[in-house]
């Protein structure tokens, strides 16, 4: 959460009048709310916007990056090794404050020109995804990097980590849009969508939008109940089983 707070401060500073030059970034989402029903198989959200009040001499010199981050969580990345003929988990690396969904797209591969540490402060790029804010000792970092890369691979397979360096398309010199693919496996929660405006690999503007993803329907409610009121859920499961078991017994006895 501290990282998000730091980002909000960064963005707020950028938005201060006089901090940026004349141009202004305006962006929004095609939808601010997604309902996860039992038949949800994934969807797409469009981020669109424009750069207003561009001085003629600056036209066409801008780049856009879009970053979407799901609710943060701590995950364990485990590696299996053969022990006495059996494949078992032998090593674990925990990655803290990792967004459960991560999407980054840009209008051109410009951000590779920026240093990783600068991009890390904006969370731009899968190569900085999951990295801690403060660097740690190099001996540790090689192992961490190996596990972090494995995590990116696994999450990419599920569509939970997406990087598209041409994902933001300009129409003309000011209008832009990007498609965010939301896979079927997303978690519920509040998703942070940030649009960055760049000029010469420098962030000169940013705008934030929130996307809410909710579970609906009986399955969604049961999941929420199971985690928030586990005792009530457990008693319900027990009650359900007793009703079915005794009900079957009653029906079969009368036959």
């Amino acid at each position, binding site marked *: 959460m501290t990282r998000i707070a730091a980002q909000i401060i960064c963005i707020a500073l950028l938005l201060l009048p006089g901090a940026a030059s004349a141009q202004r970034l305006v962006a929004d989402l095609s939808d601010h709310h997604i309902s996860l029903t039992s038949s949800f198989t994934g969807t797409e959200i469009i981020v669109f916007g424009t750069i207003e009040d561009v001085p003629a001499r600056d036209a066409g010199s801008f780049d856009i990056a879009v970053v979407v981050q799901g609710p943060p*969580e701590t995950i364990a990345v485990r590696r299996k090794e053969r022990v006495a003929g059996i494949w078992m988990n032998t090593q674990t690396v925990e990655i803290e404050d990792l967004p459960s969904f991560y999407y980054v797209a840009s209008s051109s591969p410009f951000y590779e020109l920026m240093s990783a540490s600068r991009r890390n402060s904006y969370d731009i790029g899968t190569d900085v995804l999951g990295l801690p804010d403060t660097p740690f000792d190099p001996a540790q970092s090689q192992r961490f990097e190996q596990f972090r890369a494995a995590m990116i691979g696994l999450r990419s397979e599920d569509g939970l980590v997406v990087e598209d360096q041409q994902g933001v398309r300009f129409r003309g010199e000011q209008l832009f849009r990007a498609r965010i693919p939301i896979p079927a496996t997303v978690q519920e929660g509040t998703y942070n969508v940030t649009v960055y405006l760049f000029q010469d690999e420098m962030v000169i503007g940013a705008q934030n939008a929130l996307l809410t993803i909710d579970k609906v329907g009986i399955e969604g409610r049961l999941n929420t109940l199971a985690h928030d009121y586990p005792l009530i859920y457990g008693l319900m499961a027990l009650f359900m089983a007793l009703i079915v*078991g005794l009900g079957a017994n009653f029906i079969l006895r009368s036959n």
Partner: protein
Amino acid sequence: MQVYLPIAELSVNILLLVAMGGGVGFLSGMFGVGGGFLMTPLLIFTGIPPAVAVATEANQIVASSAAGVGAHWRRKAVDFKMGGVLLVGGLIGSSIGIWLFRYLRELGQIDLIISLSYVVFLGAIGGLMLIESLGAMRSKSKGATLGRRPGQHNWVHGLPLKMRFHRSRLYISAIPPLAIGFLVGILASIMGVGGGFIMVPAMIYLLRMPTNVVIGTSLFQILFVTAFVTVLHAVANQTVDMVLAFFLLIGSVVGVQFGVRVGARLRSEQLRALLALLVLFVCIRLALGLVTEPTNPFSLGAVFH
């Protein structure tokens, strides 16, 4: 027709679940066994996380044992005092089992331990059953009868804390039934089985209970232990999938009926040999999963603090 399983967090065809419930129900009706030790591996093969398969299976066994215990109760074939002692052991065992389950889950080893326990138990039971049923088939064809030697269980009668069990017509120490209940409780929480396959032979050969009260009494213990395990798993691990359990149950209550009818018409030695082969097949399938190199050695898991 897909249904989203809220705890397993995946979509599965409803008909597949009902068919699985029906199939395992049919087998358990035909062979007169609880289906837990077949259903849990089957769920794992379907892609349900092992931890969810185990806890959900405990939930399902509540229903099947509730249906069974009612019938035995009416026939006065339940020794409630013996059931109570077994239950006390079961509650202690399952509490420890749940704690162990949670600890292994935090270590990232629960899936391995579940599979390993199944390989060991299915291998041992399937192997013993196969040897026993083949022996019975052979001796029958020879026309000889294989006499069972009475076991040397005198040590059971030398233990302290003696209690009188009227319905079983026994005066024995409470320690063996407590220990049996304890072991079965651990198995219920870690493997998602009722444990009848251990408890019933132990009650007959170790405690020397009359066979007419054995099934009812073990079902009585299984009902309360699995009920306790279901609630504990829900609270400690949040791994009970009610929707999954429901559709499996719908299939199994029907399947059991057909299984009982078919089983009554078949010869028991052949039936047991068939079941033994099935158990060994499941065992080998699980064992292969443990020894073959995974396509990706890395996996992601939740962190519990």
